[in-house]
């Protein structure tokens, strides 16, 4: 799994990766929750999950197309954003593997 910068123009806050289209959602959400994320809701074709902790990073998943966007909390200092994205990216890789959502 490779996390890369998304379209968001504010440097280093919005990242994306691809997951399996139509992943097993129950299993995937369980994996997120096991690693400290909380499901915020499923509507308008997307699933929103927030990371617990001081920094509320958000994950937005489009199950239909297999797009995952990571939105770092905007309080993350500029100079820490790349490292923070890499840290969360490592965690996401584990979650996606446990949730059977890695792309083929």
């Amino acid at each position, binding site marked *: 799994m490779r996390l890369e910068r998304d379209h968001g123009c504010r440097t280093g806050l919005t990242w994306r990766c691809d997951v399996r289209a139509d992943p097993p959602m129950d299993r995937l959400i369980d994996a997120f929750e096991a690693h400290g994320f909380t499901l915020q809701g499923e509507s*308008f074709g997307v699933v929103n999950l927030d990371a617990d902790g001081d920094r509320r990073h958000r994950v937005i998943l489009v199950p239909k197309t297999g797009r995952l966007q990571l939105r770092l909390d905007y309080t993350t200092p500029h100079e820490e954003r790349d490292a923070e994205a890499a840290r969360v990216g490592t965690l996401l890789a584990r979650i996606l593997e446990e949730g059977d959502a890695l792309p083929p």
Partner: protein
Amino acid sequence: MLDRVLATRSLLPEHDLSFLADAPVIFHCHHFNLFLDQTIDDALGVEAGTALRTRAARDASYHLLSSLNRKLGLVTPAERLELAAALFAAMGHGRLEILTQATGGEGRGTWLHYGFAWHEKYGQAVRRRFPADAMAAGFMAAATEVAYGLPRESMQCTETACIAMRAPRCEFTFKPGKAEVPEIDVGTAQARAVVRPSFTGLYEDKIAAIAKGLRDFAGGVAGDERGLVQAFGVFVTLHLSTYYNRISYDAWNLVRERSPASLPVIEALLRESGHVCVFNTFGGILLSPEWEGMVGKIQGDPVEIVSGCTAIGRALGFGHWTLAELKPGERLVLRTPSTYESSYWVTREGPAQQGMCFFVQGAALAFMQLAERVPWTQRPKLTQEFYVELFRRGVPWSVKETKCIAKGDMACEVVVQKT
């Protein structure tokens, strides 16, 4: 309480104009907000620009807060001030502490939209020398007037510390002054009187369906625990269109009186505010996972982009934008029986001699730029560098507002043509 506030939201459904209590509201992002404020300061100078922006915020906020208090039956100053602070945060403008009495006082702000967003966007590279939060200043002045039953447009406010200037928080002082003569409120009744009979255009079914979905989505958007809204890769505010209109048109009038040769410059900048908005907010929405979930992956077809942008304009409350004509690569005719700009101009300024919807002009041109020059399927990044490349290095389009409700026409019509 906020549920009761949200229950006062209304829509002129055939005209896609939104109101909170009686005040017209629209969504705009921090890029647009900062650009328009900067345009006013560039045109008038920082001191006069800040004064105008503060007056405009006080004017627009008084209308909102007084009509809201009437609808909700709030009586005591404490409950009125509490509502004001909660509402400001819910609209995505940040957190306020309003510590005022009828005789003046102080205010504090944390995570204020303008100051924080300026610092986020420019603070690494530029040191700001003057405060950024005229919106918060005017809002708190109006909240104090409404809370204590003071004469409208009488409370003076100065921002003495600002996070955009690297202060730990924003601070404000208030003192009563001489009341200015209030302007006519531009509310629901005034908008109804100005709009023209509605009509539809090309791809209407698709545009209407997307606009409805986006409006439903936007209805659930509210400030987070810091009072900010982060969405679509930008910071979003639910804002008072009277603020935008008053600062734009008062500045335009002042430039016309004092320096008519500079009028084309400020008109170009007001048009550019439309480019900034469409590139950042509309582009951000089109590339967002929310759009992908709701509408589908962007394929990059010009009709898809222009009709999608038209739907976004409606959903954000800009008016009932329709496509009268679209020839990809050649020409776009955007026509609407309602714009937030014409509602304001006709109500406060009377008949115009020229098209006055500068924002719509700039937005329509930007539609064609997005449709023709953005490689949508290659995951483009909407960076400042890409903006400069698209909009400041030879734009291959001309734009003209051929009809305007402010001139007495039955619609506003903007024609974008390949040059």
